[in-house]
């Protein structure tokens, strides 16, 4: 115990004497979490506020053109332009303007589009009501031109396509019902009113975020981003941790310790103890920032009420997993460069695979399976379960155990590798 105390005291002094390193250990994660949460939180707001530049050439000037233009303007999602450089655009100028990135979207609604839909519907109705199967339906499709800047996200394209499809369907059904009303009144004995009056919503949806227990949780960007980026930042402890091990190995101080009555295991345990405190303080400072500072930056506050014990246990396990990984990297890497490059890239990969950047459920099948072996995924799932799914400690204990096992596994690898090095140099 005395040996552990002396070693831990050494590691504590080494850490606090490196003021720059210490500042980076705490300030960088705070900055990372704050910036990432702000970015994610503000992305939608920023789009709403500034709008996506959309140029529209509405040659229809009838129901279809008017409803599409009106709904797009009302969506507040786009800044709609009807002119390019103060001139009525042409198809060519729209293509060029979108290709140059000046506008993200270009829409051309062809002339007489509504009229052509009417003609089509009328013809179809006549065919239906004539009972003459020899009359062929008119096949005159209306094409709405949609030009998209390749830099624009696919999700935006899909949203826009979906919206236009919906507006078009509205116009089509309106015309169909109008025509149907006329045809019925013309051909049948019974007079009917405007069938468009039947059009009222019959199917609605009710949205609810479901979580365990009675408490309804409304997730916000803090709830989503803080655990993800906190884990990411915590795992970056691997780099200073591995570096400290390599520095001690290179300057001979580790060898000196190993000639004294202490084992490699005790050197590791002392480091684990000290770095665990560092990781935990990182976690506490990030959580405190989420709770108290986020609102000052216009971000939603992190709600940790009633979850502190579960969160602390998860943070403890995540810190152990990160430190365990650091031990194995620090033991196996031969140089600072090896450790720094491997540690940083591998943490980024583990984070990517673990769902820190892209949710696991939208990943390809292979990566979804791969995500199960990332300790960051275990940590993230655990934190999400606690913060947004209202789970308690018992519900996430399996994630805690996985991370503890990962840490023990890393420690075993390090001890085995140390033994190999001692035996075969």
């Amino acid at each position, binding site marked *: 115990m005395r040996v552990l105390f002396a070693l831990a005291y050494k590691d504590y002094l080494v850490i606090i004497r490196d003021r720059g390193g210490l500042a980076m250990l705490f300030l960088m994660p705070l900055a990372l979490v704050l910036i990432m949460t702000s970015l994610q939180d503000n992305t939608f707001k920023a789009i709403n506020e500034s709008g996506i530049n959309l140029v529209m050439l509405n040659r229809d000037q009838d129901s279809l053109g008017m409803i599409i233009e009106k709904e797009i303007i009302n969506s507040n999602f786009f800044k709609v332009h009807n002119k390019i450089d103060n001139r009525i655009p042409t198809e060519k100028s729209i293509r060029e303007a979108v290709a140059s990135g000046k506008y993200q979207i270009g829409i051309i609604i062809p002339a007489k589009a509504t009229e052509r839909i009417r003609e089509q519907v009328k013809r179809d109705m006549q065919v239906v009501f004539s009972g003459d199967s020899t009359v062929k339906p008119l096949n005159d499709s209306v094409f709405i031109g949609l030009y998209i800047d390749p830099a624009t996200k696919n999700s935006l394209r899909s949203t826009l396509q979906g919206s236009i499809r919906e507006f078009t369907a509205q116009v089509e059904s309106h015309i169909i019902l109008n025509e149907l009303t006329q045809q019925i009144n013309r051909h049948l004995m019974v007079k009917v009113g405007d069938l468009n009056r039947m059009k009222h919503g019959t199917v609605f949806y009710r949205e609810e975020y479901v979580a365990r227990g009675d408490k309804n949780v409304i997730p916000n960007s803090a709830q989503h981003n803080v655990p993800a980026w906190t884990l990411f930042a915590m795992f970056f402890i691997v780099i200073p941790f591995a570096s400290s091990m390599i520095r001690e190995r290179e300057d001979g101080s580790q060898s000196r310790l190993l*000639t*004294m*009555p202490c084992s490699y295991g005790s050197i590791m345990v002392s480091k684990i103890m000290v770095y665990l405190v560092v990781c935990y303080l990182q976690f506490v400072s990030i959580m405190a920032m989420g709770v108290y500072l986020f609102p000052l930056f216009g971000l939603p506050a992190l709600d940790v009420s009633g979850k502190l014990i579960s969160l602390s246990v998860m943070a403890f396990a995540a810190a152990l997993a990160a430190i365990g990984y650091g031990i194995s990297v620090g033991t196996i890497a031969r140089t600072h460069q090896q450790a720094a490059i491997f540690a940083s890239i591998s943490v980024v990969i583990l984070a990517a695979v673990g769902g820190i950047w892209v949710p696991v459920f939208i990943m390809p099948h292979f990566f979804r399976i791969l995500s199960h072996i990332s300790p960051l995924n275990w940590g993230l799932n655990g934190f999400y379960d606690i913060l947004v799914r209202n789970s308690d400690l018992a519900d996430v204990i399996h994630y805690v155990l996985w991370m503890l096992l990962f840490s023990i596994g890393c420690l075993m690898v390090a001890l085995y590798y140390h033994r190999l090095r*001692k*035996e*075969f140099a």
Partner: protein
Amino acid sequence: MSTDNIAIDIQDLTKYYRGFEKPAIDRISLRIGESSIFGLLGPNGAGKTTMIRILCGLLIPTGGKVMIGGYSLRNELTEIRRIIGVVPQEIALFPSLTARENLFIFGGICGLKGSVLKQRINELLSTFGLERSQGMQVGLYSGGMKRRLNLIAGLLHKPRILFLDEPTVGVDVQSKSVIMENLVEINRRGTTIVYTSHYLEEAESFCSSLAIIDEGVIITQGSLNDIRKEYKSDAGLEELFLELTGKNLRD
């Protein structure tokens, strides 16, 4: 030498490094007497450091048997670590810590505590002329000061056997003089010293017995006079060394 007076008993010690066909240490047998100052000399790459690292428990030998202070290196490493002190060639200290903090930590690991530890630290700092700079971070020390502190760290727990790997390399005459004088004094009080150096003149005056090792094999061993008699030479250690190890440059 009776077995009671043996500090280190080495039998057929062999060490192969991975990827090398030739052993770094090739079936070396050696006995080092209690309270002696034993010099392990040899050119670069001869196997000195490998041997010291094995004796300190930092490397596992491929073969052979080693007893240190009556303890088996293979089975009783923890006991051996309690009775040995090691002064490595590199400055194996924590540069961001003060001298006193370094010694406090090393002493604590060696089982010293409280007033005993404080007294021992004060005594050694004073002996090696570092008491006034004990609060300074070691990274700010001069080369000689670091070297003296490096030595103190190995002496804190009054080891029975002290391994010194080039203890005076790169230090000025004053520091060297303080170091050597104190080492003689420490030996006089009963500590066995195993010493390696490239300073053959220093070794000649310091060591009571020595061994010259080359390519993993002991070429000769005994007191300087014994070696002179064996090779029928009146030459100094440096001349004998060159005669035995050759003049070819070593890596």
